[in-house]
């Protein structure tokens, strides 16, 4: 018998042997107990089964426990306050325990919000949910940071025992960043873990991050160097200039370009000054006009500063160089040089310099300024480039990449601009703009989106042609909008695709609202 329970010594092995080979070939074992001696042995097979029955019941009835096993030290206490009970039930539903039942649509989208909110409020999870959360975060790496923080000391205590949860020990909390494991992680970790570590370190101690990167820089692979360099964006300052300036001579073209881009966002850097000189040569202000003279060549110095000779998209050479120069120059150059604000500069007409190419430079100049505004996170320029929020009836289009410019603005302004855009243009082109807005959306923006959905339903378009926006709406719509969506669901003719869509959206909103209320 495989029972792991110890049993008193008996004749089981003899019985087993006889049964395996058969009583035709093996004699019956001699009886060892009075009960066994009483068994009728005329038919050996029947007698063997009788003896085995006696022995089996005896073993079962007399089973003894095994010696104690060593117990590990218990998990450290978790001082955080316990999660409110309703929130605990909600988490169980979100994690799909109890047979994976969900009560409303799109719970997978709401789990990240729940985790972030619970983590911010500093709750301790019910222990029984910690393993499910760790399993879920194993499959969805974007949840890991919140999941590990919420799992807390219990999670770190459990993880070493389960190979599936190896990531827990590698997902360091913010507070662990200076400790030895960080060094170790940098030396031995997987690439993604190292990038995460570096990014985190840059947020808390940029100089230490730079030192860490510099310590292994010469041994990193070129494709890794590009991404490591990227993470210097966090906490970028003049202190990084020497390192970046050196990286302009890197073997890898991508590393050089990335270093140049970073330097161009440091207004006081030598590279920014060199770009400013080039930009000044290319654009001259004469009072009421801007004279454009694009660079005639891409010399070695320009190339070293990260300007490729050929445009990757095949644009005309001079337009390409011109764009790179202006986008890499500090925006302050234009305002201080002319005494004009961004709006005024944008309103100035552009003319060709005598040796210039054609009137199309105006567009190139705006595009380059837009790129510079995004790179330098300059809200005043971004605002001017986006223009006034579009109004109903006036079809104003913003050139460039409005979503990127939008991201430079403060959240409230972003939402207001997007709301105006949605009111004028509907949802067709709004996906990226909405994505640039902070969640949850402000009530005015939410109202504008709901109104636009209502119009789309009335115009008879199909919900699935808005599926991208709808998915985002489920995550981001303000909870205050729920009654409006419910009214919409009630007004839409039943059993249509839109009715289902609105009903589900209302359900998700209610769910999200209840979920956040429970965490208060």
């Amino acid at each position, binding site marked *: *018998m*495989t*029972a*792991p*329970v110890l049993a008193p010594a008996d004749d089981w092995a003899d*019985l*087993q042997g006889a*049964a*395996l*080979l*058969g*009583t*035709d070939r093996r004699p019956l074992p001699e009886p060892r107990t009075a009960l066994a001696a009483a068994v009728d042995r005329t038919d*050996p*097979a*029947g007698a*063997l*089964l*009788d003896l*085995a*029955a006696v*022995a*089996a*019941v005896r*073993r*079962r*009835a*007399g*089973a003894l*426990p*095994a010696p*104690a*096993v*060593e*117990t590990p*030290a*218990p998990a450290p206490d978790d001082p955080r306050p316990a999660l409110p009970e309703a929130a605990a*039930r909600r988490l169980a*539903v979100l994690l799909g325990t109890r*047979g994976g*039942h*969900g*009560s*409303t649509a799109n719970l997978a989208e709401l789990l990240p919000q729940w985790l972030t909110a619970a983590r911010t409020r500093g709750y301790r999870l*019910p*222990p*029984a949910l*910690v*393993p*499910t959360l760790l399993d879920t975060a194993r499959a969805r790496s974007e949840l890991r940071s919140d999941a590990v923080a919420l799992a807390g000391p*219990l999670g770190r205590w459990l993880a070493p025992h389960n190979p599936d949860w190896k990531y827990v020990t590698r997902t360091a909390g913010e507070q662990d960043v200076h400790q030895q494991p960080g060094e170790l992680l940098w030396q031995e970790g997987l690439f993604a873990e190292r990038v995460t570590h570096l990014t985190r370190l840059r947020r808390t101690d940029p100089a230490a991050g730079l030192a860490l990167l510099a310590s292994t820089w010469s041994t990193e692979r070129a494709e890794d160097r590009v991404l490591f360099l990227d993470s210097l964006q966090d906490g970028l300052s003049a202190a990084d200039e020497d390192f970046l300036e050196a990286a302009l001579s890197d073997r890898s073209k991508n590393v050089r370009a990335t270093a140049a881009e970073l330097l161009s966002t440091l207004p006081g850097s030598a590279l920014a000054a060199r770009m400013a000189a080039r930009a000044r040569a290319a654009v001259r202000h004469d009072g009421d006009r801007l004279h454009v003279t694009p660079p005639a060549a891409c010399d070695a110095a320009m190339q070293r500063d990260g300007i490729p000779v050929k445009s990757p998209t095949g644009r005309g050479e001079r337009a390409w160089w011109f764009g790179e120069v202006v986008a890499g120059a500090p925006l302050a150059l234009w305002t201080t040089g002319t005494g004009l604000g961004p709006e005024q500069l944008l309103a100035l007409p552009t003319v060709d310099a005598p040796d210039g190419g054609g009137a199309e430079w105006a567009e190139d100049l705006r595009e380059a300024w837009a790129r510079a505004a995004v790179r330098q996170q300059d809200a005043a320029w971004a605002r001017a480039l986006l223009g006034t929020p579009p109004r109903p009836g006036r079809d104003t289009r913003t050139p460039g990449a409005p979503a990127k410019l939008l991201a430079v603005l403060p959240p409230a302004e972003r939402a207001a601009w997007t709301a105006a855009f949605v009111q004028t243009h509907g949802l067709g082109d709004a996906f990226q703009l909405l994505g640039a807005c902070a969640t949850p959306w402000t009530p005015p923006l939410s109202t504008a989106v709901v109104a636009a959905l209502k119009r789309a339903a009335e115009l008879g378009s199909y919900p699935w042609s808005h599926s991208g926006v709808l998915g985002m709406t489920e995550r981001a719509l303000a909870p205050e909008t729920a009654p409006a969506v419910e009214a919409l*669901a*009630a007004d839409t003719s*039943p*059993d249509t695709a839109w009715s289902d869509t609105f*009903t*589900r959206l*209302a*359900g998700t909103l*209610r769910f999200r609202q209840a979920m956040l209320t429970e965490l208060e």
Partner: protein
Amino acid sequence: MEERWSTEHVLSLAPDPASLKAAGKLSGPGPWSATGTGRGALWGLCKGSGSTPYRTAVELGTPAYKCSCPSRKFPCKHALGLLLLWAAGPEAVADGAAPPDWVEEWLDGRGRAAADRAAKQQAKAAEADPEAARRRAEKRAARVAGGARELRLRLADGVRRGLADPLPAGAWEEVAARMVDAQAPGLASRVRVLAEAPQDELLEEYAMLHLLAGAYGRIDTLPEALAATVRTRVGFTTDAADLLAGPTVRDRWHVLGSRDTADDRLTTRRVWLHGAKTGRHALLLAFGRPGQAPDLALPTGRLLEAELAYHPGARPLRAVLGTRYGGPEPAPAAAPAGLSPAGALAGYGAAVAEDPWLDGWPTVLADVVPVRTPEGWQLTDGAHSLPVRRGALPEAALWRLAAVSAGHPVTLFGECGHHGFTPVTAWDAEHRPVPLG
């Protein structure tokens, strides 16, 4: 007034995940109107796709459901949605309302139907021909005895030839079919277990089946209680109504745990109870067809004042639920008293001495730490350890147990048997029950 159920309790009533999902959409106040609760019932009107709203009502005691929707799911999504809405709190569905006429009529009708059924049952019992019933029983007993004799011969053949010599495929399936023909379904299912048993457990399975078939062969010589055990294990059943007509045990029953198992034909729900006054364990079984939840839903940790009727046997455990006195109430936040691993095995041993075919006995273990070892999970109290029965629980459930314990001793309810311990419920640091299944 009925205490509001927990969301989990409502979720456990759902016949399938799709119903739950659909019910979730109906769990907000949006589609509902004219909701109320009172007289042990819950009701409301649910706006559907048609012009007339559905009338949905739940009788909370049994529970029983009524809905004017055409769904064949039971309970339907409307009933579940209404229960979820009600579970959310008094602001969603107000207490103490007078039921509208259509609910009154339904509740009155249910009362009448129950009275009719009881009257019919009595009438049937009075009418039945005891002579014919005795003849039927004798006929069946003879057929089962024939089946048991044949089974003993087949088992002896196997041992004579040697168990190392594998039987041709399907041989045991054929024997199982013959046991079904002999009206001994209990023997048939044990034969199927035998066909699946690993080599090193084979002799034990042979021997216990041999013992059972032999016991049936001389059932007339056995003490009455043991004879009842043998009859049950061979496959005779007793009608719940007949059991409830006999002696019952009234107690405050503590729901220690519940577990569902499903195959493609049937969902089986086991609910373990422990009597506060009698100290007796009881096991309730409920069944559901696929697409239907078992109709018995008793939340773990609750107390239920009720009468139970035990199936007869040398070690009575399985019982049927009779009269309930009120709904399940929350138990005080305390883990039940329990045994050490050594005490638990001794308890199982005492049970096996009375019913040798018992695989496990309901047991509360106190102060054990679950430990993962290379040989599997162990439950230890520092003096001894008891293995967790292999394959009894999915690995995720054992991790949940480990998390609830966090390395500290816990109270654990489950079945203790010769294969080890099968955990069902753990009590956390706040003494709240955590289902592990």
